[in-house]
């Protein structure tokens, strides 16, 4: 077997194991929260008998590990259970919102990742000169400002004053791709500003690290242009650390957009989660937790694999 295949399979197996561990944590975490679901549904005035009946009908009288395996088994089959608050099927409610969240995340990623890497290369090219300092200053400012403030600022200027984009990002399945793009422009812009700095700084640092290598001197003594050297000779050797940070930020784009969704009233996962946390809707919290964990682990797994594939020693063994 090709050694790289072995490594990739190993990582994949590790990722699955990690996901399993995360599912246990999520389940245990929601179990040890104080309060009783049956009580929550029936209210303070419920009789002991009614509570017992309710628990039995929900399977709450079973031991915890049985309930865990049942939950896991169902989740693997796409059945995330029913929300306590409105009795709706969670998988159904989530799928549309998940799609919206992924759409917004993809748009933000499509702008921010290439931009961050390009700015990182530019910062290395003009290291310690004004373009480098300007790039650092702008990205650090944008990451330092709270995202809700950024959200309101861009909303005020680009929507209220200039009227370029809608301030409320309402999207539905009837809209065309371009209409949707127009609708998510502002939240995507804010997300880009939020994740840009981290990826740009890492690109800059990783490439600067490589720029010390002897082969960069070799390239310089070939009379190549500075930007060519950075992009062609340094960049391919700095992929692993850059990809790691990019993936963490992509995961954040999916999982961490709660505030932005609230600001722009965007119908995504974050809003849905916040609504149900407020109502202490345990099955929904568990389902969202599991999905978010999958995204995080999946992204990091992907980062690992790209890092492995970017290493010529592993790709082309002796």
């Amino acid at each position, binding site marked *: 077997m090709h050694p790289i295949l072995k490594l990739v399979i190993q990582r994949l197996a590790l990722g699955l194991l990690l996901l399993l561990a995360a599912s246990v944590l999520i389940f245990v975490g929601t179990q040890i929260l104080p309060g009783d679901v049956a009580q929550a549904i029936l209210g303070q005035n419920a009789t002991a008998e009614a509570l017992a009946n309710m628990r039995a009908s929900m399977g709450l009288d079973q031991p915890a590990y049985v309930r865990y395996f049942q939950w896991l088994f169902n989740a693997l089959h796409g059945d995330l259970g029913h929300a306590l608050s409105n009795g709706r099927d969670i998988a159904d409610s989530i799928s549309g919102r998940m799609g919206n969240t992924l759409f917004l995340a993809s748009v933000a990623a499509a702008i921010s990742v290439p931009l961050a890497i390009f700015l990182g290369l530019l910062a290395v090219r003009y290291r310690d000169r004004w373009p480098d300092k300007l790039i650092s200053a702008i990205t650090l400012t944008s990451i330092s400002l709270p995202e809700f403030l950024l959200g309101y600022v861009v909303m005020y200027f680009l929507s209220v004053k200039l009227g370029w984009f809608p301030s409320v990002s309402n999207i539905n399945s009837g809209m065309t791709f371009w209409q949707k793009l127009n609708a998510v422009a502002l939240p995507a812009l804010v997300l880009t500003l939020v994740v840009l700095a981290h990826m740009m700084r890492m690109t800059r640092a990783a490439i600067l690290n490589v720029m010390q*290598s002897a*082969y960069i001197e070799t390239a*310089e003594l*070939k*009379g*190549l242009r500075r930007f060519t050297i950075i992009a062609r000779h340094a960049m391919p050797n700095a992929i692993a650390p850059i990809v790691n940070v990019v993936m963490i930020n992509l995961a954040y784009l999916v999982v961490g957009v709660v505030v932005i969704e609230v600001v722009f009233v965007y119908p995504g996962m974050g809003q849905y989660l916040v609504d149900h946390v407020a109502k202490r809707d345990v099955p929904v919290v568990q389902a969202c937790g599991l999905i978010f964990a999958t995204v995080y682990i999946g992204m990091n797994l992907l980062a690992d694999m790209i890092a492995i594939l970017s290493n010529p*020693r592993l790709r082309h063994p002796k």
Partner: protein
Amino acid sequence: MPDPLLDIRNLRIEATVYAPGEKPRNAVIVDDVSLSLERGKVMGLIGESGAGKSTIGLSALAYGRGGIRLSGGEIRLNGREIRLASGATLRSLRGKEVTYVAQSAAAAFNPAKRLMEQVTEAALAHGVMTQAEAEARAVDLFRTLSLPDPENFGRRYPHQVSGGQLQRAMTAMALCPKPDLVIFDEPTTALDVTTQIDVLAAIKTAIAETGVAALYITHDLAVVAQVSDEIMVLRHGKMVEHGTCQQIIEAPREEYTRALISVRSIDHQEKSPEGEALLTVEGVSARYGAMAKDVLSDVSVALRPGQTLALVGESGSGKSTMARVITGLLPPRKGTITFDGKPLPGALKDRSREELRELQMIYQMADVAMNPRQTVATIIGRPLEFYFGLKGRERDARVQELLDAIELGEGFADRYPAELSGGQKQRVCIARALAAKPKLIICDEVTSALDPLVADGILKLLLDLQAREGVAYLFITHDIATVKAIADSIAVMYQGRVQRYGAKSQVLAPPFDDYTDLLLSSVPEMELGWLERVLDHRRMESAGN
């Protein structure tokens, strides 16, 4: 007379030095050096480290490493002044008119790109030829440099070829854009002697066939004598002597040049291998982790008290593994080690403090073998506290004694490693080993990183200390000259086995086995035409077989 290709006049190069604990100050790296090189000629630049030879070499590309400034004089290449030229001008001549071959090809090749792409890159970037032409030329050069499978060699990545092949590929990379001048910066220094001779021959052939001019930089006079027409000797950034190759080798005018030529002046009388052995290694085999093959197989040697056993071999021959086994860092898989009449436990953790004390080690890289944040007194004092419980004034007195023994005076006790030269650092490491009053010191390539004259001093010191303290050395090296200078008995190692073992006079006397013959005959000799003679001899022998 036509303009010379490269004309350097009164070159001055300065750098800002950041010495620890001092204010940054200006240092003159190269002072008032002039040289001129005609088309198709090869000039050797020779000197010890710090002589400024690499810096001068790079100045022919108007390039300075780190904070180096080409601060004065004139550098003319192809008739035009380049010292103060603009970035665009420099880019247009680097990689086109003048190219560079670095000492460590392993570091100078980009690990993420195929060799062909890197070899042809400069030629394509400067539009000297088309892609097809460049690749055809690269294959021709691979062939000239006798690289294996020249048609497909370029498809490999740097990590897929050996060090010697990579060094030749670097030469191909430098010659590919048809430059007027190539700077060779110690191109064979990092190679084993048996590889060095092949690379040297390949470089010489390539220079002859392409008619390119070259600056050949090295610290090894015997090497430069094989390839150059003229030689310039440098010291501390100044020119010492300049002449034809023949004049420098056969009739050097300056004292310093004579010292460089006659280095390794040690005359060591071999001690007879009599009496009880101090260290006996019997039938030892060892491997790392879950490796399928032994790195050492069935090795048996013995060392008598107060004597020196040299382990000689090339990289990968298992000599450093041998040191790890004897020190207990790598327990052997098979075999026994006897030390001072008692069996020595294989693993470090099973050894008593006494056993640890009696067996000390000195390493190749003195700077990384010392804690940079401790003073010399702390470094040497540590084994005194650890093994003998010495404290306060008693310890300080002993530290001073040891400093005297290694010929470093009073003021050194309070210095930090960064304030010492390479040779001084190695002396401190020797003092640290001696502090434990060991019966055996393992010296792992202790002079390989040092300049010849400094190395010579270290070897003399080691022999002196041996005579005074009666300590035995297990001396690991790849350098035959060092072995001749210091050993009483020799074990030649090859692929994890002892190829040849015995008293020095026996091992170095014919008849030789094939490997020892190859190893000994590959050591460059300070003699014009040595390279051709050895190669002719080998050709005849292989034709005879």
